[in-house]
């Protein structure tokens, strides 16, 4: 249902919008980010440099952006979602040609004051544009094959571009984020069953192709899968991460070794201890209690988002909120599974906690959208 049919008069205006923000969500985001600062301070050996201070600055910038976005009516964001989507698509294509090569993958556009990762931007704009599409599409046409082709293209084009960079983690997030919006829009069950069947087929193909001329993944990606299946096979290479990460986690016990007392994660066993593997430090220093608390905070964020979505009568707002919340969920679910040895190592950060500028900003911008939808919901 669209705003065209609602009276805009019931929506709060002016300063009173601030009162209608979803403050519980704001508090939760602050707590999770706060945990992030604590951990970054700790992994730097008790120092704000090089990570915690920079992360705080970006958090303040991100929070300001979130409030600014929340103040703008949601129908404005819906109307510009097409522009935003194609804008980020253009940026994605640009990184193919002018992105600076780092860590073997082209992911950044250097803006001078920060590095912009268009694939991060794409995570929100893709969800928003799909939500706009399904808001526009009459509900009874949702499952018609003809009307499925367009959203599939909308998802697959950026996914393919990101996969080429190569960034397997982000492209999976895009794929699943898009699928969540389609699912929420009411796409018939059968399609999902079909895709799952095809997925199984694809996985088989990926393994069959290994070593042949039409090999589908990079060698290092196969090695990561191998390592996931048998971490001991490469104790000093990639399997090393998982083994060490499990030891760090496990040695935390119930209550952990205490803040700044972690030894395993501090011993430079993990090269990415401030980014992808930051959860191990938390789990080691604060134990099960700390790790579970973070999980619970994430769960509460998801709960408030889902609640906000299903209580929102605007179709675009509901789809977008669920899509963003779903992507956010995938972020931490994949990261935690990876760290706990339940998934292969794909480079996905722990949202709001891992060090990383554009990820932090993009997540807060996304929550700005959710807040805007919440404030301007039809009453």
């Amino acid at each position: 249902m669209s705003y065209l049919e609602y009276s805009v008069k019931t929506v709060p205006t002016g300063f009173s919008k601030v009162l209608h923000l979803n403050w519980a969500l704001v508090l939760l985001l602050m707590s999770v980010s706060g945990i992030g600062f604590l951990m970054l301070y700790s992994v730097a050996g008790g120092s704000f440099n090089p990570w915690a201070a920079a992360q705080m600055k970006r958090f303040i910038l991100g929070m300001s952006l979130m409030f600014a976005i929340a103040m703008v009516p949601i129908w404005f964001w819906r109307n510009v979602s097409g522009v935003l989507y194609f804008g980020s698509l253009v940026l994605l294509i640009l990184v193919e040609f002018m992105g600076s090569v780092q860590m073997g993958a082209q992911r950044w556009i250097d803006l001078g004051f920060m590095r912009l990762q268009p694939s991060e931007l794409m995570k929100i704009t893709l969800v928003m544009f799909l939500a706009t599409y399904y808001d526009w599409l009459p509900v009874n046409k949702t499952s018609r094959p003809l009307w499925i082709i367009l959203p599939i293209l909308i998802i697959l084009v950026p996914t393919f571009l990101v996969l080429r960079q190569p960034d397997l983690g982000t492209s999976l997030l895009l794929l699943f984020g898009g699928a969540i919006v389609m699912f929420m829009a009411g796409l018939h069950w059968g399609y999902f069953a079909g895709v799952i069947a095809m997925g199984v087929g694809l996985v088989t193909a990926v393994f069959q192709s290994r070593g042949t001329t039409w090999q589908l993944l990079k060698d290092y990606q196969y090695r990561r899968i191998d390592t996931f299946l048998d971490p001991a096979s490469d104790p000093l290479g990639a399997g090393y991460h998982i083994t060490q990460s499990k030891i760090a986690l496990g040695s935390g016990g119930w209550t952990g070794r205490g803040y700044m007392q972690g030894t395993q994660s501090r011993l430079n066993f993990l090269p990415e201890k401030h980014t992808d593997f930051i959860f191990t430090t938390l789990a080691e220093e604060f134990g099960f209690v700390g790790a579970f608390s973070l999980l619970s905070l994430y769960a509460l964020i998801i709960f408030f988002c889902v609640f906000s979505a299903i209580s929102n009568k605007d179709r675009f707002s509901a789809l977008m909120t669920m899509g963003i919340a779903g992507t956010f969920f995938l972020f931490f679910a994949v990261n935690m599974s990876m760290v706990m040895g339940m998934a292969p190592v794909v480079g996905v950060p722990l949202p709001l906690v891992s060090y990383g500028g554009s990820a932090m900003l993009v997540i807060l911008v996304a929550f700005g959208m959710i807040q805007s939808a919440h404030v301007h919901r039809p009453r």
Partner: protein
Amino acid sequence: MKRTNADNSASHNRITRRGLLLGGAQVGFMGLLGLRMRYLQVDQADEFRLLAEENRINIRLIPPARGEIFDRNGVIIAANEPSYRITMVREDAGNVEEVIERLSTLVELDESALNRAMAEMERSPRFLPITIAERISWEEMSRVAVNAPALPGVTPEVGLSRKYSHGSEFAHVIGYVGPVSDYDLSKIEDPDQLLLIPRFQIGKVGLEAKLEERLRGKAGTKRVEVNAVGRVMRELDRRNGQPGDDLQLTIDQKLQSYVQARLGDESAAAVVMDCKTGDILSINSSPTFDPNLFVRGISVADYRDLTENNHRPLATKSVQGTYPPGSTFKMVVAMAALEAGVINSETTHWCPGHLTVSNRRFHCWKRGGHGHMNLETALRESCDVYFYELALEVGIEKITEMANRLGLGIRHGIPMSAVARGLTPTKDWKQRNRDSSWVIGDTVNSSIGQGFVLASPLQLAVMTARLASGKAVEPRLVKSVNGIDQSAPPDEIPDLEVNQNHLRMVRKAMYAVSNNRRGTAYSQRIIQDGYRLAGKTGTSQVRNITAAERRAGVIRNEDLPWERRDHGLFVNFAPYDDPKYAVAVIIEHGGGSKAATPVARDITLQALYGGDPPLDAYPKKDRARIKAQQERLRREYPQLNTSDRDRA
């Protein structure tokens, strides 16, 4: 587009239904994550804590054995020998001062090394082993092992350290290894994990540095169980690394050692090259130094001695030093003129002792002049005016082109440090670098290897080898890697692409230099048939001779202070009939070519005979002196006495 109310509420209901379902699934997965967390952190906590603490399983790197370096006959040049050291882990030691106190009663601890170790300990994590003493004796090592219970955190370890058995002769070629520094690391992108080991030895200069990656090898790993005080309880498994590549050089150690001894304390360099293959049989720079000093960590006093010596022992003069080639450059001018068709073997020029070009008078070394000169007599007697005339006719561009073709002005790719490019000037070059245009006098100066022209001894040897063989040979230092020969088949070495007759004329003139009564190097000839050498003398001025000086009579070199005397050069190949070796010798401030010629002859004979030559290769009047010299060298340089039995 208006939607019906029924449509709206149906859509909303569906969103609610699916939203709850999705939310539920997400919470369900989070539940799984929570369970996994509980399993790892609570149920298995004891096991992991044990792994993490009591019986930590450590993954340790096994440093690979560095590749060894041999000479062309298998004589070892750079070897690995076991060395004992003591390491300490701060975390396990508890009271560091006390443990060091106890340790110092057992082992002689070097004050400065200890201070360095303490500083390193402050900087690094508590659990990392830090080396406290290196190169301790076996007795000291056993004393530490016996007293282990009183020395928590202290571990005696055995490792390999580099030993250069013919150190000083090969110092400039092989270079040396030293502990990896932060500066080294900053230059490497994505460094090997091995390099992160404190004080890991890497090549610092010379071949050790240039071929570092090949020599280093790949690290192995071992998983060890360590107990609470950090002592290794047992090894669980190990994955062997790959040792570094063993290199065999083209250098002949025997010749290399002889040349080094022959150069003695002179500030000099000499290169011997195989004319046909480009193999470098010896490449020396003198004076030299002991690279083993650097491996151990050179003392400040020793280092100062090396840097403050005006003969610059640390400089690799053979490849790094560039000198005006002097008259040895005349072959280049001759070849350029022959190829350009400006002269033939008959063309003569009149030498009155000087030549005036655009109001400037250029002198010949022989003040009275040489009279009528053709190519052979001009090279033989090194007439400057003849080559002034040639250069004026040919022009600098063609001379430079020929110089490059003969291997001058080109950086040759051999794995030594600071291989110089030298300089073969062009008009463009002068405009760009000197900001003034080329004048005709520059061409005249270049024709006798003065002015801007610069060449290294290596380049002069390459030039001579190319003239002798007619092939564009490239210098080669590595003969084989892990026993696999690296040499290119002789027929793959490209031709020099010049007229072979012209080469023959130049070679014949070079023969006359050494074997004609009027040749500039006649006194230093070889009289054994089949071993005769053909060469060219060179003297390069370090100072300008002013007009006033010239009027007063040029000061004799012997009367000048050492650093203002002329450089002496000699290049040659031998035997003349079937050239095998090309030799280039430069004696810095030797006072002219006469300093280099006898050295080159001795080296040539040594190479041809593979040892001391019989005295009848020398002219009769020299034999007594040469015999005395051979005996003196054997006495003063005992390394020359190693017999073939010592070879591996």
